């Protein structure tokens, strides 16, 4: 029996799908049609033949809702496997962000100091701007962006989370 409580939790769910037309629309349509949250969603082919894609979706809800989400995902015809990484033990989550900061003089120096502290790399520079690349979990990127805002942050592009379980066990 699943929890009947109203406590919400976040869940990072990995979904292996057949890489066919419309599969992403099915997954997104499922979330919107049934009123589930999507905090982030990423997708890319992951096998050597390009036939299988991995979708990582970060969502939240009560235990009963998250169980529903998993069951609903699993019954989609092109879905091979659904795995609740949050429930299944320790896992790593990473996100990539490209962050554009514009400024001159002291602001430029401050931007570089912050980037250094956060291990963000400069991937583009002009006399008045930088684009930083950083990976990390969402909190780290949030914190970096917050600090950059007064320094001259103008644009952020983020991938959303990808995740994988720690240890030797594979998902397939």
């Amino acid at each position, binding site marked *: *029996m*699943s929890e*009947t409580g109203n406590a919400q939790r976040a869940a990072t769910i990995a979904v292996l*799908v*057949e890489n066919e*037309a*419309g599969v992403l*629309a*099915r997954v997104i*349509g499922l979330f919107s*049609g049934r009123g589930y949250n999507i905090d982030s969603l990423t997708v890319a082919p992951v096998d050597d033949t390009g036939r299988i894609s991995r979708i990582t979706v970060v969502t939240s809800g009560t235990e*009963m809702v998250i*169980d*529903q989400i998993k*069951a*609903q995902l*699993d*019954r*989609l*015809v*092109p*879905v*091979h496997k659904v795995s609740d990484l949050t429930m299944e033990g320790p896992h790593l989550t990473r996100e990539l962000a490209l962050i554009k900061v514009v400024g001159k003089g002291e602001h430029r120096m401050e931007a570089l100091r912050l980037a250094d502290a956060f291990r963000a790399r400069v991937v583009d520079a002009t006399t008045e701007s930088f684009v930083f690349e950083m990976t990390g979990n969402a909190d780290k990127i949030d914190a970096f962006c917050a600090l950059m805002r007064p320094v001259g942050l103008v644009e952020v592009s983020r991938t959303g989370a990808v995740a994988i379980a720690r240890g030797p066990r594979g998902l397939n």
Partner: protein
Amino acid sequence: MSAATKPASTEAALTMSGAEVVLRALKDNGVDVIFGYPGGAVLPIYDALFQQNAIRHILVRHEQAAVHAAEGYARSTGRVGCVLVTSGPGATNAVTGLVDALMDSIPVVCLTGQVPTHLIGNDAFQEADTTGITRPATKHNYLVKKPGDLARVMHEAFYVAKSGRPGPVVVDLPKDILINKAPYTEPPIAEHRSYRPQTEPDAEQVRKAVRLMKAAKRPIVYAGGGVINAGPEASRLLVEFVRMTGFPCTNTLMGLGAYPAGDQQFLGMLGMHGTYEANLAMHGCDVMLNIGARFDDRVTGRLNAFAPTSKKIHVDIDPSSINKNVPVEVPIVGDAGRVLAAMIECWKAEDAPQDTHVLTAWWRQIDEWRAKDCLRYRQEGKIIKPQHAVKRLYEITQELGRETFISTEVGQHQMWAAQYFGFAKPNRWMTSGGLGTMGYGLPAAMGVQIAHPDALCIDIAGEASILMNIQEMATLAQYRLPVKVFILNNEYMGMVRQWQELLHGGRYSESYSAALPDFVKLAESFHAKGIRVTDAADLDAGIREMIAYPGPVIADIAVAKDENCFPMIPSGAAHNEMILGPEQEGGVKGVTDEGKVLV
């Protein structure tokens, strides 16, 4: 899957057009009849149909009706129903039928025409984004973009429609794919790459369930449409299990026929318009076996008051049905038939004795509830009570002993049909339960009659609903289908009127069926027989005349206009708060706003 597919023959692979491949795939998947309506995008299929005899095409008069007919065909045979419609408006007209089949878990394959691949996305003539529109309306859908995919997709469509929890599947076929040559491969033997529903139950879960049931003091079996989906053998096993355990059994609207109505252990339908005994037994039970039902809101009433003292076992082939609305103690994923077989075996093997003493006490309580005789009504005078009309229809068909199939439209008449027509076997009852689609019954009866040419097929209808697909009278005439339309004509959208009476202060906003046609003349203009009965004394004769006539009939039965359908659990109420009859209607005033927002 592809590894196991082999070309039928190299020559065939080179000589067949896409349209021929489609028909060959239908044939190889056991299709003998297809319900459809032509148009530009599917002309190649119609051309191929013209040149063969294996598949019979039934020309409907509206694409929605094609899907309902396929549903009727499917539900009454256990096979996959098949539909063919053109692109654009053909496909959009089919959408209501598709959602209907989705909600009621009916296996249907619907082929839709599409503009040629190079025009897709250009707003071409009669282009619609059919896969986009039908994605949430189907179990799965496909757009075939390459000739090499055609045969595989066709076979897969049938596999998906009928496997696991059945449902509708759309295959969208661009016209160039139909015209150009395409290779044919036979249906594969290998497993599907990703879709493999679990049918065998976990033995440990079955054991847990059986232990719980053996110790039950106030058990109940709540069986639904999933038992029908699982095939007639599952219904047979349900009867065996219920008899063996001595448990009471109730059916959902979709499950009617899964357990024989006349049986002593049958409590009738449960839910909003279910019987007093079924609902109170659900409310008071300590162990509930839900088999193939989905805890629909029409059944549970207010969730926090639903069977409050019970431990629940839920058997469903679709894991997403389990713990969706109602959390359960013992979930069992599997096919209803397989699970019943396993439970029977396990029940026999478990030594623990059953306490028949407490069971007898439970039956005594149930019999007290039964004694209320909640479905009684009084037929007096000339005015025909709708309940009486259904009851007499049932009794006369019983007396005649002909194989009888009943479909319905949606409304009060549907509920009276469910309450007063007893079903002894599965697959004899077609109704739109989940979507509640007015206009379902006539085309569904048509599909049933095609599958069972010699049977008696009756659509129990309302005068409002029947007008929603009335054009199908022409289809009945064309194919000489002797379907009987039995209209309980109360001159109201009765179900709407009832809610307005009970919940909206008797303000009958737009629920009067004004300007009704003369149904006798209407029947005649469609080459059918029309009968009108206005006096209770003539009811039996009218019914007999309807049944005896060898062709299609509309029997327009004038019934009491203000009759309400009882028992009723008002929306937002609990099972033990049901209203039994008009004398108790005052009780409805207590409906909260929270209840009123519910449908």
